[in-house]
């Protein structure tokens, strides 16, 4: 099974830090307005960042995927482990996308949509742009091969 690109950790860590900083800024701002001690929200934000970083690392460690002959199989999750099996016949469409952070470190994600109620859940992050495009194209050909009538 494939692992994600190691650089995805940078994206996730950055994201955690940004969220922590925003929360911290809002908290400190509120504290100064209310004339309370700014150390409580600052400390909270610090804890948030530490947890976020740990989460990002564990998340990377637990992420695995494989694109098989007739299904995509994903394994991920830190607190809740999720294993998803997406039969290729069920794929409605495939996106590759790049968020700002991902562009920063030169990575991309592939998102697979099914008609299922949790369809948009299936996202494979941490691919190199070439890999993401390749995966998208490969899935496309596989999906076209299978019978379109079975999609719903």
């Amino acid at each position: 099974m494939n692992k994600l690109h190691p650089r995805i950790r940078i994206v996730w860590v950055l994201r955690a830090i940004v969220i922590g900083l925003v929360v911290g800024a809002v908290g400190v701002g509120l504290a100064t307005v209310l004339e309370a001690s700014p150390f409580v929200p600052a400390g909270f934000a610090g804890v948030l960042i530490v947890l976020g970083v740990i989460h990002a690392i564990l998340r990377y460690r637990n992420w695995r995927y494989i694109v098989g002959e007739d299904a995509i199989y994903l394994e991920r999750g830190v607190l809740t482990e999720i294993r998803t099996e997406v039969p290729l016949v069920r794929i409605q469409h495939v996106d590759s996308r790049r968020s700002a952070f991902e562009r920063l470190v030169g990575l991309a994600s592939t998102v697979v949509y099914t008609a299922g109620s949790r369809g948009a859940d299936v996202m494979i992050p941490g691919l190199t742009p070439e890999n993401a495009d390749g995966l998208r194209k490969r899935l496309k050909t596989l999906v076209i091969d299978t019978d379109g009538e079975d999609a719903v």
Partner: protein
Amino acid sequence: MKLAPASIPYRAFQKATSLGITLVFIASIGAGIRIGSPTFLLLAAGILVATVVYEIAYYKRFAYELTDDTFDIRSGVFSRREREIPYGRIQNVDISRNVLERLVGLSAVNIETAGGGSTEAVIQYVSAFEGKRLQQDIRRYKHGKSTDPEGAAGEQSDRRADEEVLFEIAPSELALSGILSFDPRVPGLILAVATGSIPFISPIVPVDAPPLVLLALFTVLLVGGVLLAWIVGAISAVVNYWGFRLTRSNDELRYERGLLQRYSGTIPFDKIQAMTIKDNPLKRRAGYATLAVETAGYAPGQASGRGSEAAVPIASLERVEQLADEIAPYEQPTFKQPPKRIRRRYLARYLIALGAVTAVLYGLAAWFATTASVPWYLPVIAALATPIAAHYKWVHRGYSLGDDHLLTRNGFWSRETKLVAYYRIQTVIDTRTIFQRRWSVATVIADTAGSLSLLGTDAAAVDIDQRDAERLRTELADRLRTALADRRRQRAGGFEWLDEDGSEDESPAELVDSQTADRPAPDERNGDATVDDVSTGERADGRAAADHRAENADGEHGDTEQQNTEHANNEQEADNEPDQKNTNQERVNQERDDQERRGTQSDDQERSDGRDSGRDDGPESAN
């Protein structure tokens, strides 16, 4: 085609009323306009004229058309919109009429497609007759038939004739459904309101009254709340299911229901995603149950939280099971339960919840009164019942792998049995929360495109042993594949058998062979992927079962040719379109070619993938 002319005054009336209410509201909060003043009257008149003009323009702009392969709608006064909906994508067509609309003879037609939380097209309003005609014509177009205006009436009476009434609610059943439908959301709402109003009530309540009086007050409130919830539930059930009628014609279900607002709709059999049989101890005691049918479309009225509307509100369990069996033949399930150890987990969970409630009550009591006077410790008594609840939660929980369906059952009080055909499964998800891992159990969810799934009620085998979960996951994915292949073969094969009457037996066998021969991949993968032996064995069994099913299907085809009634979803097409046999034949051929091509292609792919999975699956199987 245009809307009904009567829709102009009706829509204008609707709009003007809501705008008028807003105006009165604004006036009443004193925004410079007094009710009855000249400006007020001027504004009201302006609103009236504006809405009428707008509605006339809306009427002029709105046009819909049934073309050969799409349903087209052009609409919009300020921003124009043209929409084409392919017939094949339409999940269901619903008609709703409230009291007023029935009085003036109008219907609103809603067209639902799969995906998305909203209705694809809303046609407000057409005449009642036109609504019915639209419903039928769309159905007919979906099957590739054109309409002839004069034949429509004749066909309608024909259709009535071959329409078979599956279920018609009896007054006693309606009454019973009212009595038994206790709406649990209402006590919650009351509780929320009550806790919110405590600061206002507390000065009135004689806090220094003897505890006995307080207790009595408390009990009266509680009983009152429960009674109210009951009455509300009963009324809403009766209003919703007044005159409920479920019929089936060859390839679809039709339902009608509603007292104040009349709903009717169709559900094509091949759009049904899942079925749910629901009951609770009260209903079970009386031997009754509820049946709900899910499609991939947005269920009308889902916003009101009542879920799929094509539900049989209540019927004897026997009848419900018979109905479900008629809609999708399934075999008597044997549920496999989660491991017994899990009961302790449920017990702990209930106790923790009770503890939390008690703590909150204690906190409130300490805050508003003296802890001595309020019986905050009452919930603790309920702790005595928790072992029973935990036990029943475990008893009810389970899953069953049938020939064609996955059945799951959940719920300690309100028990739900979900029935999902393998070929309807979209994705298979296996989750383990941090708590579940401690007990080494997992939840396997079979996600479908059903609309109720949005509420988180997918078919789920909850808290089964992790090894079982692993097996169930691969098994479901595998069965999905074989079921799809079966269906495809049926679709393709069904036409062939109609062609060559004499050699019926040969072609399916040949197809089965080619199918299995062309699909070497899963076996190879099993070998490489080092999943444990048990599952490989099971898979082989599954294959055998699938072949067996194919043979059965063969027999069925023979029957359906004469009877043309039972589970004729797919074969129906064949009957409807005799002139398309040739194209279907072509499709079969093409499909074989495809399979061959894929076979060779996948060989190469398999080699690389197989190596990959062989290496990396090692640690996983060690888990």
